[in-house]
């Protein structure tokens, strides 16, 4: 299509929603246009399910009326099948919508379709997943990491919502040059999340910039009595719709009152040793981001964290243990894939699981089974959970005493080639910057920094204390006001 999507001509969700609210744009025209462009622009690793007649086409006077978004396939929906990226659930039709999906539709969003993900967001190479790997919007030979992030980068939708367990959506945002905010654990309902690692699965919005993230996060950030892990209060503050928006706006007003140094007195913690193992381009981008924040009034302070070097290993052991438990529900009896040939009921279960799961998931299940088995639980699982405790304590202590927010890279390098063969050691090491927020349950916002010399995106990550979602949004937006990296747009392939 020669014309860009109508919604992409607006700089932000607020600008688009404002135009709809004033009657400048007909939301029905917007919906038809978004559907046409999503169908025309769809490709491998993007929309898993897209049906022009099936999307939420109801128009309303709600705050986000007509804003086109995608739903990652880790969240269940009644309209479309819900697969988690696994052949095990290839035909699964949910009898209900995830709470976050309901919330965004009630807020007026046009849900365009389901977006591809790696199998249970774990098989990053997507070698055995239901969907093909997502090509990077900036270089189709490289990994995009996430259908949600790639669809936002390609302007097929204004935003997306999905599930970040060990950093899949933050990594996807970093690779594709967009933003993602993983909220604190317990702040967004997980009802309707296709579970992988329950203590770390977290509903996460993806969008171009921080302002758009605020628009998508606020309606979904509230207590849900139907989710046993949803918090009603945290540190005396009610978990309610409006909390994130009010906090974000309060911080923005405070910044504006500081004039040319809006981040005056903000202490940005930098971890000793974070620079080790970074590519030169990521190290340069990190330093440039710090200098930009300093030019806005922030100051950098060095911090150290206990057990941070073991965080990725601890994450992988805990995630495998939880996945082995969660995925035991797939038995070929109640729902999901059933093998075609078998001898008896035990053989049916074993073959259904071995044929329905991809090899990467099978290996996770076996590792998790080993981690949880007698004798190895004490040697592997408990030490991993002790690392988690040490890291959580030291990160919270640093955020209460030494600094206000922590800045880290999201990934140590730019997007790998789609066919890159990497060892497990390299894959685990790539998760070292993402694991801390997953293990500790603290909020983390990933946003684009300066790209590498070839234009490939590089992502930064701000981690904050409990309830800091609005603060993170305000600081990232202040950064984005002067850098505009989030408005870069890849050429359409």
């Amino acid at each position, binding site marked *: 299509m020669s014309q860009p999507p109508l919604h992409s001509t607006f700089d932000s969700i607020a600008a688009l929603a404002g135009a709809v609210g004033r009657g400048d744009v007909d939301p029905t025209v917007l919906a038809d246009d978004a559907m046409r462009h999503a169908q025309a622009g769809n490709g491998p690793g993007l929309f898993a399910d897209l049906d022009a007649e099936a999307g939420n086409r109801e128009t309303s006077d709600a705050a986000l009326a007509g804003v086109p978004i995608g739903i990652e396939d880790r969240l269940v929906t009644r309209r479309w099948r819900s697969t988690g990226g696994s052949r095990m659930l290839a035909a699964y039709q949910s009898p209900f919508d995830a709470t976050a999906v309901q919330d965004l539709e009630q807020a007026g969003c046009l849900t365009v379709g389901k977006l591809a993900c790696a199998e249970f967001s774990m098989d990053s190479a997507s070698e055995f997943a239901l969907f093909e790997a997502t090509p990077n919007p900036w270089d189709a030979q490289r990994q995009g990491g996430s259908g949600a992030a790639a669809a936002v980068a390609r302007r097929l939708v204004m935003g997306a919502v999905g599930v970040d367990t060990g950093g899949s959506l933050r990594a996807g945002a970093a690779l594709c040059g967009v933003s993602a905010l993983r909220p604190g654990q317990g702040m967004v309902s997980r009802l309707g999340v296709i579970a992988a690692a329950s203590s770390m699965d977290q509903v996460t919005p993806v969008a171009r910039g921080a302002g758009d993230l605020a628009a998508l996060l606020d309606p979904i950030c509230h207590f849900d009595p139907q989710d046993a892990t949803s918090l009603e209060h945290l540190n005396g503050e009610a978990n309610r719709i409006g909390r994130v928006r009010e906090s974000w706006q309060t911080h923005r007003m405070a910044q504006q009152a500081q004039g040319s140094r809006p981040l005056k007195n903000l202490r940005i913690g930098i971890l000793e040793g974070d620079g080790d193992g970074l590519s030169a381009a990521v190290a340069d981008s990190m330093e440039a981001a710090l200098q930009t924040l300093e030019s806005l009034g922030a100051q950098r302070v060095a911090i150290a964290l206990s057990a941070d070097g073991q965080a990725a290993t601890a994450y992988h052991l805990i995630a495998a243990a939880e996945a082995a438990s969660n995925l035991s529900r797939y038995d070929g009896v109640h729902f999901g894939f059933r093998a075609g040939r078998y001898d008896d009921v035990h053989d049916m279960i074993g073959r259904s699981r071995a044929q329905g799961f991809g090899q990467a998931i099978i290996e996770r299940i076996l590792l998790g089974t080993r981690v949880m088995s007698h004798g190895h639980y004490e040697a592997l699982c408990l030490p991993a959970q002790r690392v988690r*405790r040490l890291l959580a304590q030291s990160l919270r202590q640093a955020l209460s005493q030494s600094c206000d927010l922590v800045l880290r890279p999201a990934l140590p390098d730019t997007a790998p080639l789609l066919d890159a063969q990497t060892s497990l050691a390299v894959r*685990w090491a790539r998760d070292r910057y993402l694991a801390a927020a997953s293990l500790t349950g603290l909020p983390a916002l990933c946003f684009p920094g300066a790209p590498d010399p070839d234009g490939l995106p590089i992502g930064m990550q701000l981690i904050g204390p409990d309830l800091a979602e609005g603060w993170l949004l305000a600081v990232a937006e202040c950064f984005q006001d002067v850098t505009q990296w989030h408005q870069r747009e890849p050429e359409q392939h």
Partner: protein
Amino acid sequence: MVISEQDLKNLAQLAGLALAPGQATAARAALNEALSLAQAVQEGVDPAIVPMVQPLAGQLRLREDVARAPASPAERDALMANAPATAQGLFLVPTVLE
């Protein structure tokens, strides 16, 4: 801590996975690599530290201990619509007892 073929068979049985030979060979190699990396998690960590199972400990609530009404026929049909095989409102599996 090397995983033998027998170790892998035991693990696969525990995990309910009937692996084909190629799957088992690849999984054994991957598992050995993972367990080699996993040793690092024990280094320098005081065993007196209380393990942290999840970040919301102490803040989670318990559901009220009340019985729920059984699913209506319509709810049951919706819940069973994804089952691979059903008969008369029941999940169908191969014969367990002759």
